[in-house]
């Protein structure tokens, strides 16, 4: 018994130390940094609520928050609709089923940096593939990433494309749990395909939809490499993301206190938004 105690503590010791150094300390220090000004060179100075006040009045920060909501308002519906549609298409007897699945999942395994570089070329105004296709179809080319009103939608579409395979797998798992007897029962009642989808499939997939909404919201708030590579946050700061602003404050301006404050605010915003989303979706389900 004592031997088990001892080997248990010994075996868990490295991980415990890791959690203290790389999780507990950074969390506490992040909260402390909110009340400090520090450029990494001089000693940290206590600054009271200066960072919080600055953040509350920082137009650039709130611009980034607003941009994220623009991103999410396009990304979330697009992500749910495309993942659901592809999952429904895959959830039937098919030839080459694993090939289709693998094809949809391919962008998920590719680095976000590569996808961003690739898509800035696909979106290029003069030589890009997408405008090439548009011109072929007799349409006029669009300056996707340099027009302030299309830049964020273009990035949102790209992120949807990159992650959809991941959410298809989540929906497919949910679809497999819908009992055959339910499907048969509703068909006996003479329900149309649409009615079956609306009153059987969609409600039963609610847990998966909540998961998709939560994960893609968290993911959306962490948007960084896409604007960093594709637009630098422009045009007119329309694609500036919260993490990009955090990174700039830390790396370019050496404002550790302020950057940490942005990090804490971001965590709070993510927590609040996800909480509200779950309440709203839960309510919608009750009706």
């Amino acid at each position, binding site marked *: 018994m004592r031997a088990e105690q001892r*080997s248990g503590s010994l075996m*868990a010791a490295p991980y415990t130390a890791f959690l203290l150094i790389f999780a507990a300390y950074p*969390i506490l220090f992040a909260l402390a940094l909110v009340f400090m000004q520090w450029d990494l060179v001089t000693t940290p100075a206590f600054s009271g609520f200066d960072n919080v006040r600055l953040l509350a009045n920082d137009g650039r920060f709130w611009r980034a928050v607003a941009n994220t909501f623009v991103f999410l308002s396009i990304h979330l519906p697009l992500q749910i609709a495309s993942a659901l549609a592809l999952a429904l*298409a895959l959830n039937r007897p098919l030839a080459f089923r694993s090939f289709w699945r693998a094809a949809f999942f391919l962008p998920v395994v590719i680095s976000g940096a590569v996808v961003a570089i690739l898509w800035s070329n696909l979106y290029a105004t003069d030589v890009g593939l997408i405008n*090439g296709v548009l011109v072929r179809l007799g349409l006029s080319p669009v300056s996707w990433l340099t027009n302030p009103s299309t830049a964020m939608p273009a990035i949102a579409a790209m992120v949807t494309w990159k992650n959809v395979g991941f959410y298809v797998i989540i929906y497919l798992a949910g679809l497999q749990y819908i009992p055959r007897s339910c499907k048969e029962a509703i068909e006996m009642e003479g329900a149309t395909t649409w009615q079956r989808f609306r009153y059987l499939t969609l409600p039963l997939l609610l847990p998966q939809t909540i998961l998709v909404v939560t994960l893609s919201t968290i993911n959306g*708030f962490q948007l960084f490499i896409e604007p960093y590579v594709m637009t630098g946050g422009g045009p007119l700061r329309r694609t500036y993301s919260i993490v990009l602003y955090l990174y700039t404050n830390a790396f370019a301006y050496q404002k550790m206190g302020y950057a940490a404050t942005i990090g804490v605010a971001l965590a709070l915003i993510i927590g609040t938004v996800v909480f509200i989303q779950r309440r709203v979706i839960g309510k919608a389900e009750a009706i």
Partner: protein
Amino acid sequence: MKMLKRIALYGVLALSALTFIYPFLWMASATLKPLTEIGTLSLFPDHATLDNYRTMWARAPFGRALINSMLVAGTITASVLVFGSISAYAMARLRFRGSSVLNAATMAVLLIPGQLTLIPLYTLIVQLGLIDTYAALILPYVFNATAILMMRQFFLQIPQSLIDSARMDGMGEMRILFTIFWPLSKPVLSIVAIFIFMGSWNEVLWPLLVVREQHIMTLPQLLTVFSLGGGAGSVGVSLASAMVLVIPVVIAYAILQRNFIESMAGSGVKG
């Protein structure tokens, strides 16, 4: 009618598959095209050339970055498997003081967004004098809470009688873990290995913070810096450098496709 529906279904599937695969094919073909042909839609270059690859290789240390990436991702994966399974074993099968606290702390860590701890971790690395070292890239990732929870969950299902009889034979806990638990835990170990390796292989924000020296950079970082800094100079060269990062992943994915999908979808980790 039924036939028509089937044809429509396969048409839609083929079209969607094409939207996911075609951009990568276009990228591969663009790296083989001379500058004058980049704007064309054709997948097959009229005058195929390896110039883009030669230029890319000569302008920035991509070979070195490839080795760095393998070293960093490999070390992190090995550490998460070996050291992670040691603590997961203790948390699952041994009674010791504080084990429930450790469990709760592991769950709590999963709820904290990485951006909250990003800056304090960065200042910690600066103060330890670890900027521009491999240690800066590896240390914050030597354990992984998701991996520990997954391994712990799996270890909980292994029968106690195996442990008891091994102890009777005088085996220590470490030997029980590595000679009895590991062989039984291949499914979970391979899932953890893939998502940890991929996560590390694709990570770019953390390296951008803690590494400025080109020779320590991992592939995604060097690629980003190279393409943004204008080092590439042309689309073909910049895409050629992206290919160095993509080719190993696509080969591994083609071989281990099912494991990849299970692993990355199961862990909730995206690239």
